[in-house]
């Protein structure tokens, strides 16, 4: 219970500093009988990159998927507690997850382009949400998204080639472009670089830093170096608990909790 008190304190401090974009209170997640997330409280700010770190199976991805209600697609998963975006409870009965996910985009661990053309991959979101009135506007949205995904120059001559034909790093940037095309306010990234080589990883990390200008980015990562490189805030999860949450610099230089220290020094994980 001590960890909760600490994180509670942290949260309080943060709330006074900046207005929170996402505020989670007492979040519990159950997979059938397993208690996967235990009483997590966290505030995520706008225009910030927040990293979730922790050993495998600690619940960081599960918590991430609560923020856009992707867990709804898993039958046995049950979420309790309170997650608010701009003060609105996203688990309210009146909220349509479809609308929510348009506002909270997501990029997955493995690049998952649809078996369609590059253009159609990016245009998919704007089309289903009706963001473009005509072809010209759609073209515009697609180009802007691809530019923001830092892949425009590589694909502009083959927009109608299949998205699955790109290299792994390109596919992941395409997926990021696809996610930003629906103009979300929050971008969730679930280990976006774990399937990529170092060069592609560097490109994506650079991109994440740029995306911070427009979005609130939450990134789950296995790599502490990556967390340190790209994030301003870091949350450390362990066995379903949020152990420590604070400025990235502070977490990596002067962790308060002994478990955080053990993890970043490589003794657990």
């Amino acid at each position, binding site marked *: 219970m001590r960890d909760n008190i600490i994180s509670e304190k942290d949260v309080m401090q943060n709330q006074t500093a900046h207005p929170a974009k996402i505020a989670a209170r007492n979040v519990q997640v159950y997979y059938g009988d397993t208690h996967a997330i235990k009483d997590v409280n966290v505030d995520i700010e706008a225009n910030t990159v927040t990293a979730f770190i922790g050993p495998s199976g600690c619940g960081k991805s599960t918590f991430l998927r609560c923020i856009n209600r992707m867990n709804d697609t898993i039958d046995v998963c049950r979420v309790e507690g309170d997650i608010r*975006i701009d003060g*609105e409870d*996203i688990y*309210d009965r*009146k*909220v*349509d997850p*479809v*609308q*929510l996910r348009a*506002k909270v985009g997501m990029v997955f661990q493995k690049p998952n382009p649809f078996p369609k053309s590059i253009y159609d991959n990016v245009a998919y979101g704007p089309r*289903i*949400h*009706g963001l473009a009135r005509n072809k010209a506007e759609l073209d515009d949205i697609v180009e802007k998204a691809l530019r*923001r995904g830092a892949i425009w120059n590589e694909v502009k001559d083959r927009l109608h080639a299949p998205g699955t034909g790109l290299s792994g790093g390109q596919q992941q940037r395409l997926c990021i472009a696809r996610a930003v095309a629906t*103009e979300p*306010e929050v971008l969730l990234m679930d280990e976006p670089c774990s399937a990529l080589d170092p060069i592609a990883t560097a490109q994506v990390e650079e991109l994440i830093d*740029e995306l911070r*200008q*427009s*979005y609130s980015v939450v990134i789950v990562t296995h790599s502490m170096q990556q967390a340190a490189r790209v994030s301003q805030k870091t949350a450390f999860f362990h066995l379903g608990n949020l152990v420590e949450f604070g400025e990235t610099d502070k977490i990596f230089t002067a962790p308060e909790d002994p478990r955080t220290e053990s993890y970043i020094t490589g003794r657990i994980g």
Partner: protein
Amino acid sequence: MTDITPSGASLLVQDARTQKRNRAEARFKMYGLAAIAVGLLMLVILLTTIISRGTGAFQQTYVTLEVPLLEAKLDKKGNRDLADIKKVSTFGYAPLMKAAFEEKVAAAGIETSLKSKQMAALLSKDAAATLRNYVLQDVDVIGQTIEFEFLTNSRVDGYLKGRVSRDSMANDKSINAAQLDLVDALIADGSLRKRFNLDFITGADASDQRPEAAGMGVAMIGSFFMMLVVLALALPIGVAASIYLEEFAPKNWITDIIEVNISNLAAVPSIVFGILGLAVFINYMHLPNSAPLVGGLVLTLMTLPTIIISTRASLKSVPPSIRDAALGVGASKMQSVFHHVLPLAAPGILTGTIIGLAQALGETAPLLLIGMVGFIASNPPDGITSGLMDPNSAMPAQIYEWAKRADPAFYERAWGGIIILLVFLITMNAIAVLLRRRFERRW
């Protein structure tokens, strides 16, 4: 990069577009449910049709008569010599039955304008033969008066089952109103009634004129012998082929051709196997027409791909670590397969074989071409050789045969036959499911 303006709209309010999309979602889901409902509805209609139309075949109408077995008619010499008595044909028995019918009507005090011939016409054409067989079995009954339950003809039976009514009688010369009055009186008297009919399950087929006497028994034996052939050939050959392809075959174009061949054979129309059977087994090898052996051979070829495909799946599900373990203690490849992999795959192989057999049991089209229809399978075989070589029918072929005959009484037989066939299929599939549940192993 600051041109992205937050949409600002509240999440708690569904915008018009989202509402529209959600309605489309609900509609789409409805289509899916409706499709499943239609599929299940068809199943229900099919099954209720079969049961409601077929159960009648398991009941038959009988009339009880007391027949005086007059020595004067049946054994004129009075020496009870079987050879002499055999010379009396069924025509010789007809007067006895007419007399018995008259007796019955008089004893019950029923008034009717019918002549004894018209009364006796209510009996099945099979009735005299039944009586004759009874006498030939024990000639000492001659001279006695015995009580005997005779089949009525199919019209009377139809009347009791609601198939024949006084309205439908108008265009039916086989029965008239006075006869139905007599039937009603006999029902009231208690001597004419409907009861369970074992002969439908055990008996032989009967000719066009006698639907009431037709049974599935002999066709069932024909099916049994065919399944025996299929089991004896398809299982060993199928398992051998699967073992080769799964465990030993090198990866080359010959193996590829065999594999493509097998998956294609599984999808070749069954009637093509019938043509093959006709051309090779009957026209070339001169095996007898309509013999269960030929039917079994054709069905073997047809079932082999199914068995091979399921056997290979079972072999594939045995993890390679088992093979490695056997090889590791110095067993040969052949020993590892026969001592370890095959026993572990056996339940799956058995399940696949049973399902393949069930498929073969219900198959009709190839049997038409090798002549297992169009005749009356009247005598049960008296041994394995005659069971395999003598002309016989098979359950589905018998059903087809009945479906083609004009008398609606045979349709009831056909539906009843389907019930018997389905009972076999359900049993086989249930055994397969149980085997799978009991022995299924998750690696």
